[in-house]
């Protein structure tokens, strides 16, 4: 598959090709290998370790032996052997019959359907509600995404040892409490799936608006990983509207990535972005998904509505062409589903474009009780007050926003706007 037909394993292979094949196999096969081993051995820890050893063996052997014709099958077989070795080492009294069964069972790869189901099982297990949300995120990135513990630790600014402990504790709990390895039943599926999507959205958002004074303002590795995992779920559950909605939302957001931060590392708000710099292919794919959901004629969930709002924004060649009444109607629909003050705040921003800053400010001020600790509340107020010429109040609101903002690019932008006030 990765090698041209007829190329034997003994032929000299370019090292770049091998490197690429290993990277690609890791991206495409990691979750599959971990998932099928977890089902077979009933143990995430064994599956994870054996998968890691199989990839390490590939790194050792493929440069000399050549890339096997079916890397996925090679990795699964190798990982199975590693896992059997470990089980044997750990239990001298291991049931001989069972062992013989396992050894016999390492050649024909499973039919594709069953394997895909395994990856879904793996995702639902990693995102089980009996695990803390940070743990679900870490476990999903490790087991499904194949990120290493140091990579995950860096992504969330946690010490490596602490992240290692968190993942180990999770594996112990899954085993000891017997968190099931299966896709939830139809009646539980909507709630559980929305839990999985929440994990992926969290990963995406941390990449999109990274927090911390020493972090890059946008963490491409995290947004890319979140998109990759959401694509995987989309491939596994193509009928689900919210999965499509979340993917569309991520793509339409990711499309604006390069236009969102200036060369000097400052956040560029939507109205000042160079729309020509948006990624047209991602915009097109996102729009396609939104249209697909509209055509489905099923009442949309929150991700689909958020995606639709982003589709309206990305359809306007110029900020002034934005169909704000459409945006407002979508926010109203969203508020109906999820009456959260943050959504009300975003609605007020659209309201300012339709009914002017004074009406919007009144709507924003009504949210003070709930949002006084949220930087975007103060940033929005600051901007509305500025537009109303109330400079002194605007300055005070910018100060509060700057105090509370955690993203370096956003702080830079707010600071400049504050200094521009007259």
């Amino acid at each position, binding site marked *: 598959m990765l090698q041209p037909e007829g190329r034997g394993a003994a032929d000299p292979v370019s090292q770049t090709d091998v490197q690429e094949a290993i990277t690609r196999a890791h991206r495409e096969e990691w979750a599959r290998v971990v998932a099928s081993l977890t089902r077979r051995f009933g143990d995430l820890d064994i599956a994870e370790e054996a998968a890691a050893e199989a990839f390490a063996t590939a790194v050792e052997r493929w440069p000399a032996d050549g890339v096997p014709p079916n890397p996925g099958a090679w990795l699964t077989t190798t990982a199975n052997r590693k896992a059997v070795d470990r089980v044997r080492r750990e239990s001298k009294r291991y049931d001989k019959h069972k062992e013989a069964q396992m050894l016999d069972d390492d050649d024909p790869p499973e039919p594709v359907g069953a394997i895909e189901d395994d990856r879904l099982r793996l995702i639902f297990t990693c995102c*089980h*509600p*009996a695990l803390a949300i940070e743990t679900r995120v870490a476990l999903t990135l490790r087991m499904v995404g194949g990120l290493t513990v140091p990579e995950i630790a860096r992504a969330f600014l946690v010490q490596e040892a602490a992240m290692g402990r968190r993942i180990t504790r999770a594996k112990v709990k899954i085993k000891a*409490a*017997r*968190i*099931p390895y299966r896709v*939830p039943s139809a009646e*539980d599926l909507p709630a559980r799936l929305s839990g999985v999507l929440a994990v992926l959205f969290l990963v995406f958002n941390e990449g999109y608006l990274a927090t911390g004074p020493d972090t890059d303002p946008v963490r491409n590795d995290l947004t890319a990983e979140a998109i990759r995992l959401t694509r995987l779920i989309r491939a596994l559950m193509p009928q689900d509207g919210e999965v499509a909605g979340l993917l569309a939302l991520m793509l339409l957001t990711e499309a604006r990535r390069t236009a969102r931060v200036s060369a000097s590392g400052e956040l560029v708000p939507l109205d000042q972005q160079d729309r020509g710099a948006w990624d047209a292919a991602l915009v097109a794919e996102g729009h396609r998904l939104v249209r697909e959901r509209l055509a489905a004629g099923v009442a949309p969930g929150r991700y689909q509505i958020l995606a639709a709002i982003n589709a309206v924004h990305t359809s306007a060649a110029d900020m002034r062409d934005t169909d704000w009444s459409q945006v407002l109607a979508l926010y109203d629909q969203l508020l109906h589903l999820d009456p959260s003050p943050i959504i009300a705040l975003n609605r007020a921003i659209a309201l300012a474009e339709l009914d002017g800053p004074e009406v919007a400010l009144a709507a924003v001020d009504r949210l003070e009780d709930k949002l006084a600790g949220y930087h975007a509340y103060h940033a929005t107020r600051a901007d509305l007050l500025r537009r109303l010429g109330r400079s002194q109040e605007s300055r005070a609101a910018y100060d509060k926003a700057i105090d509370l903002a955690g993203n370096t690019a956003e702080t830079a932008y707010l600071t400049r706007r504050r200094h521009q006030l007259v």
Partner: protein
Amino acid sequence: MQYLVLVIDDGAGSATAAEDAAIDAFNDRLQDEGNWVFAGGLASPSAATVIDNRGGGEALFTDGPFVESKEYLAGFWIIEAPDLAAALKLAAEGSRCCNRKVEVRPIL
């Protein structure tokens, strides 16, 4: 697999008649559906005695619970369930019947 479902009370005191009736109905269901192992209500923590006889010799008896806190154990179920998902479902019903928080711990 067996799970211990601990009933946590934060000062609500004894169960009301309505709570008792709901708990009885829930217990009947656990028995009918094969999830029942054992259950019991506990006297208040003021009736507790902590015993430390780790060194052998003379056992040390201390009046009161091992940890003083606003929340304490008021009772428990031991249930049989195939996995945590099933145990959590039963525990959620238990919590509703007895009108208290519960904690689920797998029994090893």
